[in-house]
């Protein structure tokens, strides 16, 4: 789950990250008929729509259908039940805390990886992606081994909210880093040097030139991080312990509802969870896109 982060050394993406970002409003060039026969565009469109419908849209529609199966009354009851609200609270709190944490440390890490140099940096860079490649259940066991009852460092975080947050921070570690890195690589250092030669101090350059241009990328990474935290299940399973009101996240409550044979409730909570993470994702992308365009206009 990562944006392609190989630095683009030329082309419009260098200063306009939103061109590379899905969900942007920039239009492609008008339809080109080079790799299409007349009419094959429609075929391609049809096949693509069929594929996406079958795999993505149909299942999600089934959830929406089941969620309103008992009427709006049942829907409301399910999402406002004590356990559901507690689960939302736990999930959102943990997600916000972890996302903010990631924004700070992700930015710092990207900075060090791009602007600093020390032996082993390249190895570290590769290793950052480990949480992406690791199965979530493995993460959960690893976290339990380190912060559970038999913790070798004396930290016992099992069945506590900090335990859940540590697991979430692990799986979302690469997201902000990988969003910021390519932008940091591309930043036009001439502007910084010009500002410095005009007498602006280091911190001033940082806050008025560098950070603003990184903001869209940080926001984009934060959006991904938040969405992932809200949706996460496997990595908090063993270390969290599913304590209602403390460490039970919404995805676990959904599973409990299925195990208790309450499909309508499970579908209802799913719809709410989906809406939250999807909205935040889109919002931060749009925000990031707008900020980037504003930056460009200012720079032009």
């Amino acid at each position, binding site marked *: 789950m990562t944006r392609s982060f190989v630095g683009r050394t030329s082309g419009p993406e260098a200063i306009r990250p939103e061109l590379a970002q899905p969900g942007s409003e920039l239009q492609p060039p008008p339809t080109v008929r080079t790799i299409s026969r007349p009419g094959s565009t429609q075929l391609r469109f049809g096949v693509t729509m069929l594929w996406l419908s079958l795999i993505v849209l149909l299942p999600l529609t089934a*959830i929406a259908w089941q969620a309103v199966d008992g009427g709006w009354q049942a829907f409301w009851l399910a999402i406002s039940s004590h356990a559901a609200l507690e689960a939302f609270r736990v999930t959102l709190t943990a997600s916000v805390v972890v996302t903010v944490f990631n924004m700070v440390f992700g930015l710092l890490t990207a900075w*060090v990886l791009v602007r600093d140099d020390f032996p082993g940096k390249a190895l570290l860079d590769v290793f950052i992606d480990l949480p992406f490649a690791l199965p979530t259940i493995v993460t959960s066991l690893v976290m339990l081994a380190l912060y559970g009852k038999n913790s070798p460092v004396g930290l016992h975080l099992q069945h506590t909210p900090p335990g859940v947050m540590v697991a979430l921070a692990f799986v979302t570690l690469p997201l902000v880093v990988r969003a910021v890195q390519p932008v940091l690589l591309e930043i036009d250092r001439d502007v910084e040097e010009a500002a410095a030669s005009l007498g602006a101090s280091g911190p001033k350059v940082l806050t008025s030139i560098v950070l603003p241009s990184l903001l869209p990328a940080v926001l984009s990474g934060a959006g991904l991080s938040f969405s992932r935290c809200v949706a996460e299940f*496997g990595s908090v399973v063993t270390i969290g312990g599913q304590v209602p009101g403390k460490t039970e996240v919404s995805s676990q409550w959904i599973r409990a509802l299925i195990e208790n044979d309450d499909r309508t409730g499970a579908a209802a909570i799913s719809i709410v969870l989906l809406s939250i993470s999807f909205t935040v994702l889109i919002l931060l992308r749009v925000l990031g896109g707008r900020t980037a365009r504003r930056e460009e206009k200012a720079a032009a």
Partner: protein
Amino acid sequence: MKSLPWARYLTRYVVLAYIGVMLILPVILILWRTFRPGFSQFYDWISTPAAISALNLSLLVVAIVLPLNVVFGVMTAILLARNRFRGRGVLQAVVDLPFAVSPIIVGVALILLWGSAGALGFVENDFGFKIIFGTPGIVLASIFVTLPFVIREVQPVLQEVGTEQEQAAATLGSNWWQTFWRVTLPSIGWGLTYGVVLTTARTLGEFGGVIMVSSNLPGESQTLTLLVNDRYNRGAEYGAYALSTMLMGVAVAFLVVKTIVQVRRKRARQA
């Protein structure tokens, strides 16, 4: 920008401490716990019949998911990159949806759709074709979560590369298939490979969706991740750690492959 040396060292060591505690410490601990009893113990636990079956099933799922995602993913990417039509934004958003969906929700959705009491339950009831509690369920869940990867890696490349080469080929008289095979496909080569690596890693690691739709029978319908969970639940802790370490080794192998792909990609662009 010249930064003060102390600020530089402070940032560097803060970040190293962060990565060390978050990433390196857990990995070292697991490796230690796994190999302390000796390598033969480790090997025994990753070669039990159930483990081999789990590996077979996981690889089978990858073998089905990959080609489907590559074919349809490239098709979708071409559509999004080259064509202009109403609803393009919506399509783009649909491609992004799997990122916002919790794996548990994927499982719930598939059960509601394909279960015997579900909307498309006739497939199981009338044709006897099991999707939930069968391998197709695991495949569908895996395709759902890995759908965006190939598309998102190929689409920007297509947009960046532009259509000049394809137009040139067209004017030189090649038909659409030749143009696709000889011009488009090689140009997206690295992006596609990257997407393939991500898809494979994610498919092997899928847990939340699979645990809902699989019948979880050892030797038949357990993937590697389900077996890790099973072992932990029944108290075979060491077995769970051993298999986890194996999966971690596979993850590291993917990281290495990914880096090689990226380096080659960079080099190819600069050429």
